[in-house]
């Protein structure tokens, strides 16, 4: 299993009341599979992805990543797993506005200490794979939203991760572009043997998934 959660719970305090954003979630995800977590806004999808992605810490329960119990790890070890093994794709792309397309893709590699010539070589390959080889020196503001998400995909794959977490990857895109992006993600993950967990409320995405889960009020059920 690349990811396994045991009784994963995240409770937030809002004023005087406690809200369980993720409630007792048990999940097992095999290598190279594509998982869809489907549900309305506020169902707890993003919180679950953040917990699996080691950005957030659970109130109770455990997350195992590639067999390692992450609850026993310190912040620095969790960061290293994020950097080298997990790629993130956000709804709003979250590209650094002052960096060019190629620099945004090189960024995770720079943080991982990969030599500059290697960064450039790998970034060019990834940008070619997402069809942006001619726009490498453009700034994010000079790109369309579809192109920005392609850059985000290339960035997520930069350090050859084992897992990609995509949070509403088509949320900001029109239907046609959304479909293109999802197909691209699907193809790249299959080609590179990467596991992908997609959180979405877009029903059209369901066709690419190996397993579909529905999330509602913090609980997860397999469809």
């Amino acid at each position, binding site marked *: 299993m690349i990811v396994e959660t045991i009784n994963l719970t995240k409770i937030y305090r809002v004023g005087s009341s406690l809200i369980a954003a993720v409630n007792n979630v048990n999940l097992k995800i095999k290598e190279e599979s594509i998982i869809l977590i489907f549900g309305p806004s506020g169902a707890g999808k993003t919180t679950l992805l953040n917990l699996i992605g080691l950005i957030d810490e659970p109130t109770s329960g455990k997350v195992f990543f590639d067999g390692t119990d992450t609850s026993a790890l310190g912040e620095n070890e969790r960061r290293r797993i994020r950097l080298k093994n997990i790629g993130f794709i956000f709804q709003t792309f979250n590209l650094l506005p002052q960096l060019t397309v190629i620099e945004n893709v090189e*960024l995770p590699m720079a943080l991982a200490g990969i030599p500059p010539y290697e960064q450039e070589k790998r970034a060019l390959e990834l940008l070619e794979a997402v069809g942006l080889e001619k726009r490498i020196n453009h700034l994010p503001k000079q790109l369309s939203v579809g192109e920005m998400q392609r850059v985000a995909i290339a960035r997520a794959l930069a350090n050859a991760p084992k897992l990609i977490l995509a949070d509403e990857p088509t949320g900001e895109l029109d239907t046609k572009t959304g479909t293109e992006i999802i197909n691209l993600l699907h193809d790249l993950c299959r080609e590179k043997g990467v596991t992908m967990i997609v959180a979405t409320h877009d029903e059209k995405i369901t066709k690419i998934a190996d397993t579909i889960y529905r999330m509602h009020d913090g609980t997860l059920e397999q469809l």
Partner: protein
Amino acid sequence: MRITAICFRNLKHRRLRTILCISGITLAVTFLVGIGAATSRITATIEEMNSLFEDEIIVVSRDVFVIQGFPIGGVIPETIVNELNEIEGIEDIIPMIFILDLKTGEVSRVFPANITIGLPLNKLPLIFSLSFLRVEGSIPSEPCKEVLVGGSVADQYDLSIGDTIFYEGENLTLSGIIRGPSIILSRSIIMSLELAQKIYKYNAQISMAVVKPDVNADVEKIASEIESRINYVMALTENERNELTNPVLDQLKIWDWGIKLFSLSISAMLIAIVEIINVSESRRDFATLIAIGASKSAIFKMVVTETILIGLFGGLLGLLFGGIVAVFIASSYTSIPALLFIQSFFDLISPYLIVEVLLLTLATCCISGVIPAVFALKINVNEALRAEY
């Protein structure tokens, strides 16, 4: 892609703020260098005055104002040399006339433009160690017609050896030019005692006598004996002269450091505030960086490098403008042409001052980056990634 490259991009991205910050630092450093150069010139001159008369006793009129070894005004009779000769433990006595060309009443000046020194020329090497000075030409052989001048004076008036100078109503010949690191001697006109007495109408009078004690003599005892025997003079030992001027030098240094710390503290606050605004506006970018695996040290470095880059640019520009300001301050207070100071720029702005100001600026900018960097590290990644901007 390196962290410094990201910092450069960030600074370029927020161009106006960066320019304002750099301008603030530039202004502060300009101020520091301008004031620092003036202060260090004054303190170096005062300190040098005493180093010329190390281990010697200066005998001056009782009520005169003395800056280290040199009296401002006041006269004593030349016959004092005979009286001093009667005291035991004295190896040599050098009568001197020392005149600061302050020209008060005409233009008020802090720095003297020229210094006239009159002394028996055969005793010149006893007073001024010529080993660290270079004399172009020769020491005057005709005491009533020839003079030596300092390099700065010679350069200012384009003088060469053998030139005739019309000085205070006398036609004098330039026999030599003194060059070297001495601020005092570079602005001096050195002549025989007789000639100085004639020009400045010191009839059988001198402004000071330099008493050189025997090697093993008790300097304090000799000075006491001089004052007890000759009641109209002060005999100042090196320690006494230092006691007179050290409080002034200490005050100058305290004010200099006070001004430096005040200016740099204001600059540090300016940079810290602007950088905190920058970090707040880039919360999502920092959250993204943390999410994709940037280490705490990388985030810290990113913020602090930005402030250091601001300090570096501001510091270098400030040194440039500060140098120009220092040249004009020195020029306006001495009537020595600015060009002359530019030619000897590193005498005015010493390498020590350059290094000190640059290090202080960089340290200030580094410290001012710490609070924004901590602020960036404390960003709640979950909230920042969810927030809509």
